């Protein structure tokens, strides 16, 4: 079964807001799996005998407390006779998703194309916290900005400077930052905020209470979904 010929891949771009921004990546996967089941999408399943899973590929996991605007997820369908009508399926899916997760755009992609996750090169975030712009300017003055992180129980330090591609303010309290993502030079927003507290004088409270929105995920150095955006009308 499950050969690439019989598969179709529908790439969805989703926004998550409100309470749904506060669940973990695994919960997000489960939420999509169940919504797709309710909406009767012919999702392809992995063939492991003991723990088969629906085939969903999220471009980039999103942390607890981070909203998204245009995050891509690939839904692998088993649809050899091309019977599935994407538009109808989307209407059902939108009705099946809890308030707070919204499909903003979609496209059908080639099942043989390079995996979505492997194409991720970066992500941009909008971080709202009082005084964040000033703290950013104080922190990133050209030299290395080192923060420590714990990975596999080993403590190491990382320099955030090469992980940030671009940053600009929208007024004094909003920072829009684009950084690396995925396998290389991944920029974690919690580490960035930690650096802004340590070196830029950002208040601890401001960092903890920051509103963080992932604006886009970059695929092959371009914001995913750019140009294909079909702002879907409400059902």
């Amino acid at each position, binding site marked *: 079964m499950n050969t690439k010929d019989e598969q179709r891949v529908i790439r969805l771009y989703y926004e998550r807001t*409100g*309470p*749904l921004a*506060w669940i973990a990546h695994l*919960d997000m996967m489960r939420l999509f*799996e169940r919504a797709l089941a*309710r909406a009767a999408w012919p999702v392809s399943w992995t063939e492991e005998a003991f723990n088969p899973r629906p085939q969903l590929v999220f471009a980039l996991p999103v942390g607890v*407390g981070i909203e998204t605007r245009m995050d891509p997820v690939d839904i692998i369908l088993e649809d050899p006779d091309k019977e599935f009508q994407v538009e109808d399926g989307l209407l059902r899916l939108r009705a099946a998703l*809890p308030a707070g997760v919204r499909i903003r755009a979609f496209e059908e992609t080639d099942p043989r194309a390079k995996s979505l996750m492997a194409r991720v090169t970066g992500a941009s975030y909008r971080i709202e916290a009082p005084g964040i712009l000033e703290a950013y300017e104080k922190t990133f003055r050209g030299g290395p900005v080192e923060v420590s992180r714990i990975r596999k129980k080993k403590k190491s330090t990382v320099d955030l400077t090469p992980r940030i591609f671009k940053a600009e303010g929208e007024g004094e309290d909003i920072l829009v930052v684009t950084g690396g993502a995925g396998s290389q030079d991944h920029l974690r927003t919690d580490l960035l905020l930690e650096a802004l507290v340590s070196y830029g004088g950002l208040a601890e409270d401001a960092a*903890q209470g920051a509103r963080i929105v992932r604006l886009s995920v970059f695929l092959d150095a371009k914001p995913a979904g750019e140009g294909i955006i079909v702002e879907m009308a409400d059902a």
Partner: protein
Amino acid sequence: MDRLNHAPYRAMLRSINKPARYLGGELNAIDKSPEFFELDRKDRVHFGLCFPDLYEIGMSNLAIQVLYSILNRDERVFCERFFAPDLDMRQIMIEEGLPLLSLESGTPLSDFDLVGFSLHYELSYTAILEMLERGGVPIRSEDRGEDDPIVIAGGPIACNLEPVAPFLDAIFLGDSEEALEEITGVYRRIRSQGGGREDMLLGLSAIEGIYIPSFYQAAYLPDGRFEKILPLRPGIPARIKKRLIRDLNLAPMPNQPVVPNIEVVHDRMVMEVLRGCARGCRFCQAGFTYRPLRERTAKTLTGAARELIANTGYEEMGLLSLTTGDHSELEDLVRALLPMTEPRHINLSLPSLRLDSFDPDLAREIAQTRRAGLTFAPEAGTQRLRDVINKNITEEDMLGAAESAFKNGWDRLKLYFMLGLPTETEEDLAGIVLLVKNLLNLWESLPREERSRRINITVSTSFFIPKPFTPFQWAPQVSFLEMRQKQQYLAAALKDRRVSFQWHDFESSVIEAVLSRGDRRLAPVIEEAWRQGAYLDAWHEHFQHPVWFSALENIGTDLYTRERDLDEAFPWDHLDLGVTRRFLAKEWLESKAGRTTPSCYDGCSACGSQRYRTGVCPGGYMA
């Protein structure tokens, strides 16, 4: 969810575990705000549905979904959910003075009209106090005023809530489905008549199944034993009858349940296939208090399954009851469900299968969809002791069922036993060990190609706890020392890499026993334990036995764990759950004589529930 727009609230969420527990916003959750609040106060009832444990536990509970869906069907009622905050959240609530808020509209508990607790185990009592306190509701009924909610409790342990009676305004006995509308209706009527709290309680007391503890006073003998409980005023029933749904097919099922956004303990759709039990195991409270056994037909259940699948998207379906294997149409049901579940990769899980009702053909069908473990509950290691507890299963039955399970590919077996049962001796413990050995030998004796590749047997033990409304309500609980000896004996005797041995806390078993058969004198003990930090006591890692034993210092545990005299009064004698005290006493004597009693299928033993003439009882719809 306006709170999420506030930085301090977001900061708080980032500092706690699983913030989604406190945020709601799940699929199928019902938020009637703001329209509901525009209704005239006289016409609406705001109902705070509370589960005194963490979100993951409460959202796994079918009763919460049943109550939530029935209450919210009425447009004049807005039912919202509350769960106990975990320790990290509770700490912040105390430090910051944050009240306990409902998941739907974020309203504090104190603003609700009715507050309903669904109670399932005694070790959750301290969480009732915690939720009331955090919600801004005075913990004692007598301290509540006209602006405070009416606090009502129900659930499987409602048959003896005397230890928490002073904290509750009303207690509900039995099946609640048909009574909810009466309760909210009485509330609206008395509110619109301008009645106060006292009128409200009086009005509620007229509903069958409602017990107002403050209308009764308990008396004790000079030696400390319980004497009697009597109504304090005229017009109040001396005995309170439970409510009963006569035909379970007519009771609504929550076919559009709230689907949590985070993983919960039982993360699946659930159908209650039958209520009650025909077997009469002498330790089992629910087995007596939910009599008579009433089934839902395969047709009712198949229809419900279709809706549940469409409305939830869950990957597992549980067929729930005390005794699912006894369902008279189980095979038909499973055959009707499999074509719906299999193509959708939905696992069908059948908990509490009884060995003697385990059908090999059915086993094969289920095994095709699921290769999980198989669970048996022989409860005792020898036939003699199984006769004492009326668990009418033979070793032959068990080996036969295990053989078909092994041949169908099962490689994990879980066996449940109770330690400290009345009349238990070392021989009975040796019987557990022997049974496990026989099961291992059976597996080894099967040809390799006919059995699973590996075998793992889990022996899970708990300590017997005497419960009200069972034949063992007179029985003692064994001492601490005996508990330890029994546990050590088994731990040594079950050393085998293919066997895992699990046992329960000694201390929490004692506290549970004290609370189970307790009276109102325990209310100050519970309050004291809670004030000293007891909370979420059902969690092994949170249970603080020194706090409990120090709170119990004056009254002691022996008064509650000892054997009771046959004619001794019980604090629950004024409650009518169907089964009669006379029947239970007869069963207690039968058990001492090692004699079994047939199940309701094999003839009526006149337990008292036959007067309902429904379900499996003579004259009932299943007879």
